[in-house]
């Protein structure tokens, strides 16, 4: 007999959280790959051997590339949820945990694409190929340990800009240059 009042009866709701379940990453990894299956970026937030990473990458790329265009952006793979979206010739693919929100992960992916787009100016796959290290730097200013560290587009781009500037200036141990540089940074 089902109850119409849902407050007191149910099994799953109203229980204490399960403290025994070890928390792992929300996002376990992010992969970017082309339609031919060539890897363009791999960010791992869980410790795995090179061999394991290669195996996962190979299998997942195959699985995602086999998906038909009309299918939804989510699939179950091993014990993870995979969220993927294709932008032009690149697939952006994230692995999240069971309790994570797939829809907001799509927004995370989109935000990253917007950041790349703003930085490179109408980004295309070639930009990612030839400037892969920049793609990593941008990602590392947006996500840290698989979670968003900054939700303002402007702030992420500003940080990258400043860091790029820092690269240009030849680092001197001379305190004068050091001081001047700090001033430049603060004024931005």
């Amino acid at each position, binding site marked *: 007999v089902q109850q119409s009042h849902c407050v007191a009866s149910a099994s799953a709701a109203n229980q204490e959280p399960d403290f025994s379940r070890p*928390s792992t990453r929300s996002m376990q990894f992010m992969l970017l790959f082309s339609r031919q299956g060539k890897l363009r970026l791999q960010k791992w937030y869980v410790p795995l051997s090179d061999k394991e990473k290669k195996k996962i990458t190979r299998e997942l790329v195959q699985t995602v590339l086999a998906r038909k265009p009309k299918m939804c952006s989510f699939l179950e793979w091993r014990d993870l949820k995979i969220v993927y979206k294709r932008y032009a010739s690149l697939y952006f693919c994230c692995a999240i945990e069971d309790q994570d929100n797939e829809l907001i992960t799509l927004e995370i992916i989109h935000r990253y694409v917007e950041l790349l787009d703003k930085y490179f100016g109408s980004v295309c796959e070639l930009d990612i190929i030839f400037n892969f290290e920049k793609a990593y730097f941008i990602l590392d200013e947006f996500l840290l340990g698989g*979670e968003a560290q900054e939700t303002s587009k402007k702030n992420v781009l500003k940080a990258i800009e400043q860091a790029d500037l820092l690269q240009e200036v030849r680092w001197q141990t001379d305190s004068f240059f050091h001081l001047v540089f700090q001033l430049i940074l603060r004024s931005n």
Partner: protein
Amino acid sequence: WVCHTPIRLRELIRTIRTARTQAEEREMIQKECAAIRSSFREEDNTYRCRNVAKLLYMHMLGYPAHFGQLECLKLIASQKFTDKRIGYLGAMLLLDERQDVHLLMTNCIKNDLNHSTQYVQGLALCTLGCMGSSEMCRDLAGEVEKLLKTSNSYLRKKAALCAVHVIRKVPELMEMFLPATKNLLSEKNHGVLHTSVVLLTEMCERSPDMLAHFRKLVPQLVRILKNLIMSGYSPEHDVSGISDPFLQVRILRLLRILGKGDDDSSEAMNDILAQVATNTETSKNVGNAILYETVLTIMDIKSESGLRVLAINILGRFLLNNDKNIRYVALTSLLKTVQTDHNAVQRHRSTIVDCLKDLDVSIKRRAMELSFALVNGNNIRGMMKELLYFLDSCDPEFKADCASGVFLAAEKYAPSKRWHIDTIMRVLTTAGSYVRDDSVPNLIQLITNSVEMHAYTVQRLYKALLDDISQQPLVQVASWCIGEYGDLLISGQCEEEEPIQVTEDEVLDVLEGLLVSNLSSPVTRGYSLTAIMKLSTRFSSVNRIKKVVSIYGSSIDVELQQRAVEYNALFKKYDHMRPALLERMPIMEKTASNGPTEIVQTNGEAEPSVVEPKHPPPVGQPASQVKNTVFGLVSRCLSLMAFYLFDLSKTVNFLSIGIPPMTAYNKNGLKIDFTFERANPNPNVAVITIHASNSTEADMTDFVFQAAVPKTFQLQLLSPSSNVVPALNQGTVTQVIRVLNQQKLRMRIKLTYIHKGSAVQDLAEVNNFPPQSWQ
């Protein structure tokens, strides 16, 4: 010696991309790696950064780059920001915590965490928070904690996520971060807010004490969320008109954890949840992402029923969304909530059923699972129609689960026996090869117990065999039925449909055909040989059967050979036992009971009274002489037959002798039939199953059956299948009575139930027990 300037990264990338074959690419890579290696050996500081960057590119293409690991460490230790940037990137890509070399980073990271330039500190925090090992985390936790208290929001936000990683790696360190969390939510900076909420979530998920401690933050979190929703356009955080959806989602998730199991917290967040649920724009994914998180929170905390209904309705609307991602998410959530909020989910049943036709495999699967969860006595006919249609057309990966689901649902809610048999037939004929192996014994049990349908069932199965013998489960069930009810088949007794005309020889042809067909599995052959054997007591063509059995006595298939030899033995030496052994199967008790068994035992009282449950005392009467002497010899044969005839896990009433059923009571639309079997191993205990059915238009609820027997008997009443006898013969209530008796059985029964609002009570004597039930 010519000193080559190492080529630039982009030039290398350009060059490698010109390679037309894998071999050509490998050659280029090997050449460049050699150059890089020698450059490393020369300890060249100027170009180390460039070389490592190139190495990272080649690593991404799949080539080994481990020889660059130490170089990354050198870059990290450099004073140049460019070096550090590439060095840390290299460390994150090439090093991992399994290699001891990563520990060499610890000191550099420590220094960089205290660097005067925040971008260097940022690199260190990022690397530590991404891949720091437990040892590194232990060493550097103090530094992270310090940075968590800085007023520099750029560093504070990173420190928070770094702390999350430290806690995940070394949970015991969680306590040390507690003081620093004090003012985290007072921050205006969204980055800090977001990462702080993540940190708080992590701590609450790990420790009940932390959870209790942070519950006081609920009002503050509610306020922050409210501001996000009510505030005007904020260009910095806007996504399609919604202000910082990432932060909103994270707050909702933390609220979920804080509200779960706690009345006060749940109440405090009730209003804001309702507000978010009703005010969030649903035209884009971002709004739906927030709604989704809101629904998850509402369902998990102690929300008012109105709020829960609101949540389910949001999911219902999601089901109608054009965006299949939204539909997918809705189905997943509904599946989680269908047990607890069954009625609310039922309202969306037709939409869910429509999703069975979706093109996406994941959506189809969820729709199927949800559909099965929603089947009940009221919608069984309609739902089964949809599910059988789905079974016909779905991908093979679904067929096994769908078939099992159909069988289960049919068993629970079948409106009539005929419908039940028809449904089983439909599954066996359309998805017969995908049906699970354990379905076969279950179906056999079901068919056996549907006494009035035997003729119809065997006829339909026989006809199905004529069409197709490739689907093994179908063939096995059919063989078994033909073996059991072959006599009904040839006598043309079917009432439900036009009886077919078939001769004994035709039936035996079909069964023998199964024995020789390539399509038959060894198990199937076993079934058909046994069926043929059983027909020796139902058909007159005994000689033909004897011949078949003796042929298979020398079969190459060991199983078949064994059976044939034993059946041969039956013919030759134990022919007098053959009729009894091959008798019609009795109705089988279901052995699994789903709850505590009430035992009401009377010891000869006129009125039944509830006594302390006791086990019936052991009976001293030895088994009859004949059975004893042959039992050992024939027991293996019998147990083998038992195995072939149905699943050993069900208790087999092998030595029972068929006792005809009787009607014990039939008044005012309530009919109670008794069916019998003898208990095994104690043949002096009669096991009676009552079947109560109701032909009136209204259900009989609170139905209680009680029985009393004379003083010389002992009675045990097990719990009934239910206490509602559904109207219009839509189902029966069954209950098992065990009676220990050696004399003519008499019983007084008392029935109480509620019918059309009034209580009904009746007493009756049952005297017409068949003699076999007490002899």
